[in-house]
C-alpha cells in the first residue's frame, strides 16, 4: 500500500503493475503454451455470481493448486467486473489468447484446467457460438457482439480487478485527476467538459459542462457533488455494471468535478439498495482511495480536500428524480419539489449541488486525460461520445452494448442484439423506461441521439432497451408502465396522484374488453394533462408509454376496443385460450384437443367442422398462427394443433362420416360469389345455411381456388379437397365452373341482390429482366396450375426458382417431381427472412434443393429462343424497410451466371382486378380491391370483397375467415341492417368439453413426431409427404395441451 503524494508516485505504481497485466491484452493464443504467466479472469458481477461464478472461482483456485500448476507457470485467478454479457454467464476469460468460456459451471472447471491450462487446448463445447451465424467465436475479440461496440465507458470492465486500485492506476487511473489538480485551473476543467459536448447520461441530456459552470458560479462556499446511482428504470443495469466493474472511475470523476466546481469537500453516491454487490464494491474502492491518499484531507498536499460517502436507497423509484434524491439523502421522504430553485443554486442541504449520473461521472477522467476533441470525435452525426444500452427482453444477445451516440437504433437491436430469438417477428423497442416510449419497425433506422428519439415520442433515458416481439401486447405494456408509475408516485401532486390511476382504469377497461372509442380519446386527453401539469419528472413523463403506444400502435388499441381482440394474445380478459383467440375463425382448439385426448374423435371432428368447412385442408396446409401462441411452447414445443386437426378430419373421412350443416329456412334472395376459393366457398356455405340462394362463379375448370391449383398434390391431395367442396355443394350451392365474370352490372341485372368478389391473387409478377420472354421461363402460379390440372408442362432438368415464399417452395418441390435432376432456389434476402412457412423450407432442403440467399436475377440467357442459363447479381443488406427487414441492394460488379434450362418466377402475385373499377369498385395498392377491413364492403353498395383479392397473397385460414365475415355482412345488408365490425355466426351444436384433470407436475415432453415419407422416396411421386398421426399418437400429443381454457374460469 503506497500513499500517493505526487504524480511520480502514481507513475511508479503504473510502471510496476502494468507489466503484470500485459498478459490480459495478449490475444495471441499461439503463445499460450510458452506463456510464463496465465490469467484466469472470472466475472463476478451480479449476473454471473447469481449463476454460480463464486463456486467457479473457488473451483479454479482449488484445481490449479491440486494440479501443482504454479510450479511451471504463474497463474492468477482474478475477479473481474461485469462485462455486460450476463446472459452467457458465468463468464471466464483465459489469457494469453483471450479465450472466453461461457455458462461455465463448477463441474466444468477440472476439464478447463486439465485441457486448457495444462495442455493448451481449447475446450470446444464451452466456447461462445454466435447464435446468428452458428459459428464458434472462441476469443473475445472475435465475438460480433463486442466487435460492433465502441467501449470507452466500459473499456476496463473485464480487464481489471475492481477490488484493486493499483490495477486501475496501471491503466492510467487517477492520472486525469492529478493532472487537473496540479496543472489545470478549475475553470479550464469546466471548459474542457463543456467543449467535449458531454450530456447527462441519466436521461435528460443536459450539457454537463454547463451544469458544472452554473454550480461553480453559484453563491456559497459549501457545495456538493452527488452521483445518481439509483438506476430505477427496470431493464437498465449499466450503472450497476460500472459500479461493480470499475468503481474507481466514478470516484475519480467526482474528484475532478469537485475540484472543477470549487468549494466542494463532500460528495455522495446514492446507490439503490437492490444493488448490494455494487454498494460493497464501491465501498471497498472508497476505502482504498482513502488509504492511497486520493480521498480525504489535503490531497497531495495541495490543500484540496474531498471525501465520498455512499447513501443506500430504500426502494423508491421516484428517488431517481433529482430533487427527490437530494431530499432522501437528507433522511426525509423522497417527495420532489418545484424547480426553480434549481439544485445548482439550492440543492443538498440548500447548498449549490451538481447531480450527475454514474455514466456521466465515469467518462469525465478520460475527457480530461484525452481532451474534449477526442470525446467529440467519438460520436456520429454531430453527437459526442458513446451511450451504454442494456439490451433486454425478447432479444437474442442480451447484455450491455456501448455505441457512439447517433448510431442507428436498428444497428443496436439487430446487428448487435441479434433481434428477437426463435424466429419471432420484432414489434417494437421500448426506450427510456417508464418515462419513455416505443419505437416501431418503421422508425428503426432512427439514430439514437437525444433529439431524434424525442421527436418520436420517446426519450433516451438511462439506456434500457426492452425489445418486444409479436407476442407482446402494446396496450398491455402501456398498462404495465402505468401500474409501475402509479405505485411509485410520491402522491404529492394531484395530476400524477389522481391522473395516473384514472388512466390505468381506462386501460384496464380496454384490456378487459369493455373499452369504447370515446375511452381512447379521454385517455389521450388525460395523458396530455398529466404530462403537462405534474410537478416532477415522474408525473410529467408517466404518460409517455401511453401516448407513444397510441401514436405508433393505434390499430392495436382499436383491435381491443372494436374487435375485442388482442393480436398478441396477452390480455387474458379478452379470451378463453390464446390459440383459439389467435385463430382467425376462433376454432375451439382446447375443445377438440380435449376430445381427441379422450378418444372421442367424432366429437372432435364435429366441433371443428361446425366452425369452418375445411378441416382436412387446414389440417394440412394452415400456417397455424395458433401454435405460435401456444403456451406449451414456452415449456417445450407447442402442441401440434394442425396435425391434430388433420387427424380428426382424416379419421372422419375414413369412417365415411359426413357432416351436413342444417339449413335454416329458405330465403328468396340470391347472392353471387365470384371465385370458388376458400373465401368464396366459406361465404357460400354460411349463406346457404341461412337459406339464401347462392351461385358461385369460377373461371377455372375446378373449384377450390389456390387450394386446387396452387397447393401441390403432395401437400393437399385433390381427393381430400374435393370431398370438402362437395359437402358445400350438398347445401344447394350452385358452383358454375369455367365461367369467368367480368361484368358486375350484369350480375345485378340477372337478379342477384349482393355480390361477393373473392377473386384471389392469381397473376404472377414478372422479374422484368432482359431475356425473360423465351421458352422455359414460367410464372410460378401458372406452372403450378398447369401441373395441378394435369396439363402438359415441360419441365427441364436444371430448374432455377426465383423467390422465397410458399409459391416458390411449392414450385421447387413440384419441379423435382416433374423430373428435374437439379433444382435451385434463388432469393434476394437472407434465408431467415423467407416468407415461406418454416416446414416447407425444411422440406425443400431435405429433398436436396439448394437455397441460394442474397442473390437476384439480372438477365435470362438463352439460345435459339430457349433458356440456357441465368445471370444473377449478389445482394447485400442495407437499411431497414417498413417490413422490418433490411433492404437488399445490388453489389456492383458481382454478376455471375448459372446454367439452367427452366426458370420459374415466384416473386409475388396480385389479383386480376382490371375490370372492377369500371363498376365503381376502387382498386388500391398492389391492384387489390379496396374494401372496409371489418365489413368488407366496397364503395359500391351490395358489393363486398375479401380474401387475397383484398389483402394480397395471404393465408388460407384468413381467406376462410374473410368468407365468413362477408357472409355476415351480406346477411345484414340484405336484411336492411347496419353493417358492423363483428361477425355474426352461431355454432349449430353445443358440446360439453371434458374438464381438465388436475395435473400435479407437468413434465417436459417434446411434440410427437409426425410420420413423413422418407426424403429419398418423395421426389418420385406426388404422394402425400405428411402421413398423419395414428390414433395413439394423436391422443398422446393431445394430452400435452395445458388446457389454458380452464384457467379462464376464474376471470
Amino acid at each position, binding site marked *: 500500500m503506497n500513499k500517493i503524494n505526487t504524480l511520480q508516485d502514481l507513475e511508479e505504481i503504473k510502471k510496476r503493475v502494468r507489466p503484470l497485466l500485459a498478459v490480459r491484452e495478449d490475444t495471441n493464443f499461439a503463445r499460450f503454451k510458452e506463456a510464463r504467466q496465465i490469467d484466469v479472469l472470472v466475472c463476478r458481477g451480479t449476473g454471473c455470481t447469481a449463476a454460480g461464478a463464486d463456486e467457479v472461482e473457488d473451483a479454479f483456485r482449488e484445481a490449479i493448486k491440486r494440479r501443482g500448476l504454479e510450479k511451471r507457470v504463474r497463474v492468477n485467478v482474478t475477479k473481474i467486473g461485469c462485462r455486460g454479457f450476463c446472459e452467457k454467464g458465468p463468464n471466464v476469460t483465459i489469457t494469453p489468447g483471450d479465450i472466453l468460456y461461457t455458462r461455465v459451471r463448477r463441474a466444468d472447471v477440472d476439464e478447463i484446467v486439465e485441457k486448457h491450462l495444462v495442455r493448451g487446448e481449447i475446450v470446444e463445447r464451452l466456447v461462445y457460438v454466435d447464435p446468428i451465424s452458428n459459428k464458434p467465436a472462441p476469443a473475445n475479440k472475435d465475438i460480433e457482439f463486442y466487435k460492433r461496440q465502441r467501449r470507452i465507458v466500459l473499456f476496463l470492465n473485464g480487464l481489471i480487478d475492481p477490488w484493486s486500485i493499483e490495477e486501475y492506476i496501471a491503466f492510467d487511473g487517477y492520472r486525469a485527476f492529478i493532472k487537473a489538480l496540479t496543472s489545470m485551473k478549475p475553470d479550464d476543467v469546466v471548459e474542457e467538459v463543456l467543449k467535449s459536448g458531454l450530456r447527462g447520461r441519466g436521461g435528460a441530456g443536459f450539457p454537463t459542462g454547463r451544469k458544472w459552470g452554473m454550480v461553480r458560479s453559484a453563491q456559497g462556499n459549501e457545495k456538493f457533488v452527488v452521483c445518481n446511482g439509483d438506476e430505477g428504470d427496470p*431493464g437498465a*443495469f449499466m450503472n450497476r455494471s460500472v459500479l461493480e466493474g470499475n468503481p474507481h472511475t466514478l470516484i475519480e470523476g467526482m474528484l475532478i468535478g469537485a475540484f472543477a466546481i470549487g468549494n466542494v469537500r463532500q460528495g455522495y453516491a446514492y446507490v439503490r439498495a437492490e444493488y448490494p454487490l455494487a454498494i460493497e464494491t464501491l465501498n471497498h474502492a472508497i476505502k482504498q482511495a482513502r488509504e492511497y491518499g486520493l480521498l480525504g484531507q489535503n490531497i497531495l498536499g495541495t490543500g484540496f480536500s474531498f471525501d465520498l460517502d455512499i447513501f443506500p436507497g*430504500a426502494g423508491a423509484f421516484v428517488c431517481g428524480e433529482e430533487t427527490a434524491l437530494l431530499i432522501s439523502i437528507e433522511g426525509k*421522504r423522497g417527495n420532489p419539489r418545484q424547480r426553480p430553485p434549481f439544485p445548482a443554486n439550492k440543492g443538498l442541504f440548500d447548498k449549490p449541488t451538481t447531480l450527475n449520473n454514474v455514466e456521466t461521472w465515469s467518462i469525465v477522467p478520460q475527457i480530461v486525460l484525452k481532451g474534449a476533441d477526442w470525446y467529440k470525435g467519438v460520436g456520429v452525426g454531430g453527437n459526442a461520445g458513446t451511450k451504454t444500452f442494456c439490451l433486454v427482453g425478447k432479444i437474442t444477445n442480451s447484455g450491455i452494448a456501448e455505441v457512439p451516440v447517433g448510431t442507428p437504433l436498428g444497428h443496436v437491436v439487430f446487428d448487435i442484439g441479434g433481434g428477437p430469438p426463435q424466429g419471432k417477428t420484432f414489434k417494437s423497442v421500448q426506450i427510456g423506461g417508464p418515462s419513455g416510449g416505443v419505437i416501431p419497425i418503421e422508425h428503426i433506422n432512427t439514430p439514437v441521439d437525444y433529439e431524434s428519439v424525442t421527436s418520436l415520442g420517446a426519450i433516451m433515458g438511462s439506456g434500457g432497451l426492452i425489445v418486444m416481439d409479436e407476442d407482446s401486447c402494446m396496450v398491455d405494456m402501456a398498462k*404495465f408502465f402505468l401500474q409501475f408509475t402509479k405505485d411509485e408516485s410520491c402522491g404529492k401532486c394531484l395530476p400524477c396522484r389522481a391522473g395516473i390511476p384514472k388512466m390505468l382504469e381506462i386501460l384496464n377497461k380496454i384490456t378487459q374488453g369493455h373499452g369504447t372509442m370515446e375511452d381512447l380519446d379521454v385517455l389521450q386527453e388525460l395523458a396530455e394533462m398529466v404530462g403537462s401539469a405534474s410537478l416532477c419528472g415522474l408525473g410529467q413523463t408517466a404518460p409517455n408509454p401511453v401516448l407513444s403506444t397510441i401514436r405508433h400502435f393505434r390499430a392495436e388499441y382499436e383491435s381491443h376496443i372494436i374487435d375485442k381482440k388482442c393480436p398478441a394474445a396477452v390480455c387474458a380478459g379478452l379470451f378463453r385460450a390464446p390459440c383459439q383467440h389467435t385463430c382467425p375463425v376462433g376454432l375451439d382448439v382446447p375443445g377438440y384437443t380435449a376430445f381427441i385426448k379422450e378418444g372421442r374423435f367424432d366429437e372432435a371432428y364435429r366441433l371443428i367442422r361446425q366452425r369452418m368447412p375445411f378441416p382436412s385442408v387446414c389440417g394440412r396446409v394452415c400456417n397455424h398462427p395458433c401454435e405460435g401462441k401456444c403456451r406449451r411452447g414456452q415449456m417445450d414445443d407447442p402442441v401440434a394443433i394442425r396435425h391434430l386437426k388433420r387427424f380428426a378430419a382424416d379419421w372422419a373421412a375414413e369412417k365415411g362420416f359426413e357432416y351436413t350443416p342444417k339449413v335454416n329456412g329458405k330465403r328468396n334472395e340470391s347472392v353471387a360469389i365470384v371465385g370458388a376459393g376458400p373465401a368464396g366457398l366459406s361465404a357460400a356455405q354460411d349463406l346457404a345455411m341461412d337459406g339464401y340462394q347462392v351461385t358461385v362463379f369460377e373461371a377455372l375448370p375446378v373449384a377450390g381456388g389456390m387450394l386446387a391449383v396452387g397447393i401441390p398434390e403432395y401437400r393437399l391431395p385433390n381427393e381430400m379437397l374435393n370431398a370438402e367442396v362437395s359437402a358445400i355443394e350438398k347445401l344447394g350451392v350452385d358452383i358454375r365452373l369455367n365461367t369467368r365474370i367480368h361484368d358486375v352490372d350484369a350480375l345485378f341485372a340477372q337478379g342477384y341482390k349482393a355480390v361477393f368478389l373473392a377473386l384471389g391473387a392469381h397473376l404472377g409478377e414478372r422479374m422484368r429482366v432482359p431475356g425473360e420472354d423465351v421458352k422455359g421461363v414460367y410464372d410460378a402460379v401458372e406452372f403450378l396450375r398447369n401441373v395441378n390440372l394435369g396439363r402438359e408442362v415441360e419441365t427441364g432438368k436444371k430448374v432455377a426458382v426465383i423467390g422465397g415464399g410458399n409459391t416458390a417452395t411449392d414450385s421447387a418441390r413440384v419441379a423435382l417431381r416433374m423430373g428435374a435432376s437439379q433444382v435451385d432456389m434463388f432469393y434476394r434476402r437472407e434465408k431467415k427472412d423467407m416468407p415461406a412457412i418454416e416446414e416447407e423450407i425444411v422440406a425443400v432442403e431435405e429433398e436436396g434443393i439448394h437455397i441460394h440467399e442474397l442473390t437476384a436475377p439480372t438477365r435470362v440467357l438463352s439460345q435459339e429462343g430457349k433458356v440456357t442459363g441465368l445471370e444473377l447479381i449478389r445482394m447485400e443488406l442495407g437499411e431497414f424497410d417498413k417490413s422490418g427487414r433490411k433492404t437488399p441492394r445490388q453489389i456492383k460488379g458481382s454478376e455471375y451466371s448459372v446454367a439452367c434450362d427452366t426458370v420459374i418466377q415466384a416473386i409475388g402475385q396480385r389479383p386480376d382486378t382490371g375490370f372492377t373499377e369500371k363498376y365503381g369498385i376502387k382498386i388500391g395498392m398492389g391492384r387489390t380491391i379496396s374494401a372496409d377491413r371489418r365489413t368488407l364492403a366496397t364503395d359500391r353498395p351490395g358489393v363486398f370483397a375479401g380474401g387475397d383479392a383484398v389483402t394480397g397473397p395471404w393465408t388460407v385460414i384468413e381467406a376462410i375467415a374473410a368468407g365468413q365475415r362477408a357472409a355476415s355482412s351480406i346477411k345484414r345488408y340484405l336484411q336492411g341492417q347496419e353493417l358492423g365490425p363483428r361477425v355474426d355466426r352461431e355454432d349449430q351444436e353445443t358440446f360439453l368439453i371434458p374438464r381438465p384433470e388436475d395435473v400435479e407436475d*407437468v413434465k417436459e415432453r417434446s411434440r410427437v413426431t409426425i410420420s413423413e415419407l422418407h426424403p429419398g422416396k418423395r421426389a418420385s411421386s406426388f404422394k402425400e409427404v405428411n402421413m398423419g398421426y395414428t390414433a395413439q399418437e394423436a391422443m398422446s400429443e393431445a394430452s400435452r395441451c395445458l388446457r389454458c381454457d380452464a384457467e379462464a374460469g376464474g376471470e
Partner: protein
Amino acid sequence: MQKVEQSVDLELPVNKDSAEYAARILRDVNEIVDLNTGRSGRLIRVLQQSQQRVGYLPPEVLTAISQVMKVPISEVNGVVSFYNFFTTVPRGKHVLQVCLGTACYVRGGQRILDVLKKEYHLEPGDTTPDGILSLDTVRCLGACALAPVVTLNGQVHRRVKPTGVKELVSRCK
C-alpha cells in the same frame, strides 16, 4: 439488503412487556444511532440497519428511534411508509421475491405470480399462515439479461419457468 458494518445485537425478545426488553431495545438503538453519527440522512440509515437486524421494524423499535434521535414519531412513520424497503410486519422464514421489472415482465414474470396465486394462494405482500414463506415483488434487480428473475432469501435465480418456481417453493421448510 445492505451489509451493516458492525453487527449489533438486537435479538427477538421473549417477553415484550418487560422493562428489560424496553431497555435492551433502547440500548441497541442507541448503538446504531451512534454508529451513524455525522452521516447524512441518518434516519434512513438507522432504519435500514435496524431492519437488517430484526428482519422488520416493530413499533417499539420505531418509538425508540424517535426518542433517541429526537425526531417526531410521525416523521419516522412518514419515512417508513414512504420507502418500499421498510416493513412493519414480520416476514416469513423464507422470502421469495419475483422481479416485475420490464424485461422480466416481457419474459413471463407475471405468469410466475399467477402460478403462485393459483397453487399457493399467495399474492405479493402475503406471508403463508404458517410463517414459512413471504412473497414480494421487486422492481428490477439489474439482472435483466437473465429474465425472468426470482430471488429466494436474497439468492438470485435466473430464467425461472412457472413450473420451476414450484420447485423453489417446495424447498422452503
